[in-house]
């Protein structure tokens, strides 16, 4: 059966279990025994003569026995329902052992905790984040240095960790133990940044562009260097938004709104964009001419903004995170998603090697492929077409004069003296004309 149908079959079956007998029936039937017993007690206690007592007690035997049998049946029915659940799981969702034998993550809990704290902050879960950071710190304090004082192997190569982090408020974390990590998060700086991001996003959602524009202006140098037009996009949207007037934007109906408001906004703010965005500004200006009948005009598209606010919110988030040296999507989310996708391959490999008794041998590189969808690719990968090896720092990609790309090791092997022949075209080249490239 196809995997999907199997899952659906299981879910259909589980859905049916809702109606199977439950323990509550037994509780109900125990009540009946209690009723029988207490009725008998009342009768005997009321009369207090041996005859009534023995008669009542004799008459009580069979009903109580039947009632107990019923309770027993209830229990059996409830238990068989559980077993049906178990069988359905075994049949359609058989348990597979996960690769938990070598828990390489278990020795890096401080780093995982830090990643989680940052994830919660970037998701805007500030109160959960602060509870978490508090709990981790309390536990560390309690455990003293014993549990977390392991040296971070990461630093063995003595490399500076601050590469992604110009401001230094995150980067020092990796070179210290956990406590410092999280207190550096607790030091509010990151939290404040994300709080700022959420405030601005909240305003964007409420269709107020001004805080975002203010932020973009404050960071315009960095944004421009990134090739981002965020500030202009936001200002342009503000212009369009004002232009639409009070009926659409719900802002006060005065000279700061509508056509005149848009015009004065443009006059005051568009000057700084003229060098880069002259054409778009002209387009906006031309559109004003068609103001009475925009939908029929050639500028209709400029003013049709159904997704504009969500679009700028997305680019705002991306730019904001990038300026912090962070990816716009949560790395933890991406890693766990990729992990779920790659896990079957890992398990298949482990199963195969376990039966053969072989160990992982390739140093540095996984010995099997873990194909990921395009949405989870972030770097270009170059595999040398001759050696079939992935290029690395030690064996970088090289471009030879004919424009073909090869790994450096391959090139060295192809070399006769200081000349080589391209394996893909008839051209020949000198080794000194080969250029190392950065993809």
């Amino acid at each position, binding site marked *: 059966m196809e*995997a*999907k149908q199997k899952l659906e079959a299981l*879910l259909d079956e*589980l859905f049916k279990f*809702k109606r199977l007998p*439950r323990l509550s029936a*037994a509780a109900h039937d125990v009540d009946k*025994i209690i009723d029988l017993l207490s009725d008998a*007690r009342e009768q005997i*206690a009321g009369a*207090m003569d041996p005859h009534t007592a*023995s008669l009542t*007690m004799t008459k009580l035997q069979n009903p*109580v026995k039947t009632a*107990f049998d019923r309770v027993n049946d209830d*229990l059996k029915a409830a238990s068989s329902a*559980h077993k049906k659940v178990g069988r359905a799981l075994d049949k359609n969702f058989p*348990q597979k052992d996960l*690769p938990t034998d070598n*828990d390489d993550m*278990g020795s890096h809990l401080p*780093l*995982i905790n830090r*990643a989680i704290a940052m*994830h*919660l902050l970037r998701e805007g879960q500030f109160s*959960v984040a602060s509870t*978490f950071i508090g*709990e981790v710190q309390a536990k560390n304090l309690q455990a003293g240095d014993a549990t977390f004082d392991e040296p971070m192997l990461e630093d063995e190569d003595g490399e500076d960790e601050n*590469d992604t982090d*110009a401001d230094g408020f*995150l980067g020092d974390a*990796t070179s210290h133990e956990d406590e410092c990590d999280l207190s550096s998060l607790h030091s509010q700086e990151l939290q404040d940044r994300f709080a700022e991001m959420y405030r601005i996003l909240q305003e964007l959602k409420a269709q107020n562009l001004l805080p975002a524009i203010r932020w973009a202006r404050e960071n315009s140098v960095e944004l421009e260097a*990134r090739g981002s037009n965020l500030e202009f996009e936001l200002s342009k949207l503000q212009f369009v938004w004002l232009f639409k007037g009070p009926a659409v934007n719900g802002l006060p109906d005065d000279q700061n709104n509508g056509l005149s408001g848009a015009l004065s906004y443009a006059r005051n703010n568009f000057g700084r964009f003229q*060098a880069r965005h002259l054409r778009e500004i002209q387009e906006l200006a031309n559109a004003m001419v068609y103001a009475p009948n925009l939908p029929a005009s050639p500028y209709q598209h400029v003013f049709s903004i159904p997704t504009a606010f969500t679009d700028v919110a997305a680019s705002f988030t991306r730019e904001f995170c990038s300026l912090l*040296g962070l990816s716009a999507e949560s*790395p*933890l989310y*991406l890693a*766990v998603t990729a992990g779920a*996708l790659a*896990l079957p391959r890992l398990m298949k490999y482990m199963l195969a090697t376990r039966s053969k008794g072989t160990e992982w041998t390739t140093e540095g590189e996984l*010995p*099997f492929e873990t194909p*990921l*969808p*395009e949405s989870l690719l*972030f*770097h*270009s*990968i170059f*595999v040398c077409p001759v050696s079939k090896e992935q*290029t690395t720092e030690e064996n*970088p990609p090289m*471009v030879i004069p004919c424009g*073909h*790309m090869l790994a450096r090791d391959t090139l060295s092997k192809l070399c006769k003296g200081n000349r080589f022949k391209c394996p893909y075209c008839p051209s020949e080249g000198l080794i000194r*004309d080969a250029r*190392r490239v950065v*993809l």
Partner: protein
Amino acid sequence: MADLEAAKINHDNHLLLDQPCLRTPYELLRKNFRSVHYPLEWESTSVKNLLKDTANGSLNGKTSPQDVVKNLDQMLAKMRGLKRKLTAAAEEEDRLYRHLDARGAHLRDLANLNTVDDVRYEAWSRTRLDRLLVDYMLRHGYDASAIALADERQMRDLVDIDTFVVMSKIRKSLEAGSVQEALAWCNENKKELRKMQSNLEFMLRCQQYIEMMRIGSTPKMLEAISHARKHITPFNDTYPDAVSNMAGLLAYRPNTTLEPYASLYSASRWQELAESFVEAHLRLLNLPPTPLLHVALSSGLSALKTPACHSTRSRQRIQAPSPSPDPQGEEDDGDHHHHHHHHCDHQPTNGTAPTTPTTPKPHHQHGTASLTTRVCPICSTELNALARNVRYAHHGKSRLLEHDLMLLPNGRVYGKARLDEYAAKSGLPAGRVKDLLTGEVFDAGEIRKVFVT
């Protein structure tokens, strides 16, 4: 090159991490049932017998009506006790079926998806991440965080908070030096623990004995000996070494330096007990021994990692665009750069001189950060150090994010579309291109096509 195959959801394999999600409610259903089954059998037999004896006694005049009433009161008390237990178990059962239902619905959402590119997949995968986070927090004893996150995400029925909170309470009591809670738990699960041949109870009994020996007064020593007779020496066949160690302990005071007695007296044994309890608890419920987040991360970090993610080289290049001399002959390329730096208006400091590694801001903070590419999660601060020790993914063929690759004189390669876009956005005159990372500006005539075979 879109790898459509990689984006397809295989519903069999995709739920490896989600096995406990459905399994645990089932295991708990069984455990809950057992918790009520044995008391019920026991008590009902005793009530039935008492009922029969009382009836017989009443019939042959041996039991007075007063005693009959007394016996009936006794039966009623037992039945009411039973009823309380059953009601609690029935409520727990309802809750577990509700969990099963909610989780079924959660997995149904996945069953309705065919590819990870479906926009609804992200929401599903986010919920899964939240589940894994709650699981991680619970297993490490961060209960308040777990509850806060589950409540915030309204997913209490998707996670097993109560189970883990109980576990964490017992673990903490062990860490604080008390065996009572753990012993009670062993008692509740006697049969199953025996089935899995757990030595937890034996270890706890030994610890009780050690604590009595630690006090060391004569009455305590006597108590210890009778405790050992009852709970320790019967296991002589199963754990001969441990039993003889316990016997030997009689001769040593807590300040001894002689092994194994010094370790037996050591306070660190409590931590070990806590760990063996957790292990037994997880095994009993058929739960994986490590948090699933560990499994997901270790697999995911490797799958995402590329040699570039921890490359020192590409970083130096970012900071100092004039390449450090390469042993394999790049003699001619030093010339290309210095002509062009003046065009680079926005980044006046960048690359104007052969910079030292201490130079502050690189033009961009990331290997591939700009325009259409996204910051790689492994390069991002959150995971970079964590991923340092894992292997990078294996690729059998090139996977390029861009087409029509162009080589700039500084050795950097970009897709033509992106170069054109950046040039336009930067307001460069026609025939000029700008390096997306270093900000250097070049003549279009200086760039070359690159072929990847």
